[in-house]
């Protein structure tokens, strides 16, 4: 082996071994760093929205994407660190103080970027409803032809129980060229039966249809599942009432109602327990003519 070759091999080995050592050292220093409570820890924004726009030069679209992805990761990280099944529209307990400024910056950098407005309209009301309204109004101002934003603003008002404002917002959205006919129908529906289950079903069904965000669609789908479950529970209570009228008592087990479920076509498991929309069996409160979701197995949101 000549000297040159030996030198090359030695240098190559130094590079490989040195890089491996560096990686190991990084891992080691990571373990030495004191642990931080992930819920207490909060990153800070690099820049505020106006400065970020100025500093982005011609790259504001890319910077907006960066802030959008950071928003998603911010929420994702909080969700991973949390325990239990948390719905996207009820993240109030997760200390999300940076979400509004992150979404605000993304939309200042790229005012036509609709998804951050929509995401904010779904997630922010539980954290800070005024911020949610402000962000969605900002989106409407920048994109007056985006009827979906009126739908989301109407949804925020509807969730707050402000049915008059929700109805007016849907009415404004219905005037936008290209808005679907159901926006007009929603105006009347909220006006006449604001807090009803059928209004909720209509809103979540439209949200599921229209949203391009998987998380929002999942959230809408869960709400629809819950609404279906509430309908099912009402149906089961009717069955209990009929059974009680016939026998003078409440059923002690699902098996007693099995023939009725079979006749009506209600899906059941092997123990004749009816299944909720997520496929988990309902629990019967024996002797009380009452039904409830099984918290351990169901995927239907409880509230």
């Amino acid at each position, binding site marked *: 082996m000549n000297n040159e070759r030996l030198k090359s091999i030695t240098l190559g080995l130094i590079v490989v071994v040195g890089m491996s050592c560096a990686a190991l050292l990084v891992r080691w220093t990571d373990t030495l760093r004191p642990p931080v409570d992930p819920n207490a820890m909060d990153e800070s924004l690099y820049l505020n929205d106006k400065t970020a726009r100025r500093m982005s030069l011609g790259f504001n679209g890319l910077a907006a994407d960066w802030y959008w992805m950071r928003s998603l990761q911010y929420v994702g990280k909080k969700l991973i660190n949390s325990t239990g099944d948390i719905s996207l529209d009820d993240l109030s307990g997760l200390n999300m103080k940076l979400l509004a400024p992150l979404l605000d910056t993304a939309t200042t950098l790229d005012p036509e970027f609709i*998804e951050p407005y929509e995401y904010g309209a779904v997630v922010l009301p539980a954290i800070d409803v005024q911020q949610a309204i402000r962000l969605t109004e900002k989106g409407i101002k920048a994109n007056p032809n985006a009827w979906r934003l009126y739908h989301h603003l109407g949804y925020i008002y509807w969730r707050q129980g402000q049915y008059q404002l929700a109805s007016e917002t849907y009415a404004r959205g219905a005037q936008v060229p290209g808005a679907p006919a159901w926006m007009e129908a929603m105006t009347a529906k909220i006006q006449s039966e604001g807090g009803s289950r059928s209004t909720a079903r209509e809103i979540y069904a439209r949200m599921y249809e229209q949203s391009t965000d998987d998380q929002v669609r999942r959230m809408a789908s869960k709400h629809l599942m819950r609404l279906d479950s509430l309908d099912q529970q009402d149906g089961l209570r009717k069955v209990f009432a009929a059974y009680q009228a016939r026998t003078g008592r409440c059923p002690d087990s699902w098996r007693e109602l099995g023939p009725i479920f079979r006749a009506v076509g209600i899906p059941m498991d092997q123990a004749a327990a009816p299944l909720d929309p997520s496929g988990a069996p309902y629990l019967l409160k024996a002797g009380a003519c009452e039904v409830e979701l099984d918290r351990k197995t169901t995927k239907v949101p409880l509230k």
Partner: protein
Amino acid sequence: MDAQLRTLDTAQATTHYEKSKLGGSGSLWRMSAIARNAFREAVRDRVLYNLVLFVLLLTAASIFIGELSGGQERKVIVDLGLSAMLLFGMFIAIFVGVGLVYKEIERRTIYAVFSKPVGRGEFLVGKYLGLCLTLLVNVLVMGVGVSVALLYVSRGWDPLIPTIWPAVLLIYLELMLLTAVALLFSSFSSPALSALLTFLTFVIGHFSADLKTLAVSLGSTGARLFFTALYYLLPNLSNYSFITPAAHGRTPAAGFVFATAFYAFVYIAVILAAATLIFSRRNFK
């Protein structure tokens, strides 16, 4: 090897200059010879290797961005692709642009060129066109790369594909402007200072709207005039930023593209004239 090739290039180019003495459109012929030479040199200097990095960036983005962007991969691909095109192009325009003249002086090949009947203006414009050709190839390949990435993430035709090309054209015009600025600075200062000044021009060029706002909001007449003058004198590069609207499927109006192209050509002509003026006064004896 490189030095030999460069000498060969210079020899070829000067042969072209010799031929041009016989031709009718001599000046154009000479400039095109220098431009081809500058292009070949850029290729040999591995300037186009940045395309490999670009392709890797887009490939990684196409595969992984879907996971991170919440279903916005098409927008992110366009933003990332066109921004990278502008960024890489800017680096080429600055770092290659400032060395166009300087390298010829340092290698002393400029003496061989000027011993032939080649005007200094022809030399500068030829060099400029050569780098513009390099940037054109770069931008075209990157544009195709973004289109292919869109085809991949959309699993077929994507309506954003035709809308990115007007934005690509505007990016190219911006890079042409920036190259001219780099050439101007390099005609009288060192490469490091030229690169810094060109980069600052790029930054200020994107702040031009703020300069105008500043001029309007200032109380003092002198300051107002100063910032208004700056607004009109510095290249208005913010007009060439059409990346974000392109990512939303919007295209600029034909009139706007024409106006910005016309502005770019006028500005480039002015800068090249100024560069030639300065360069003509330099003593190479």
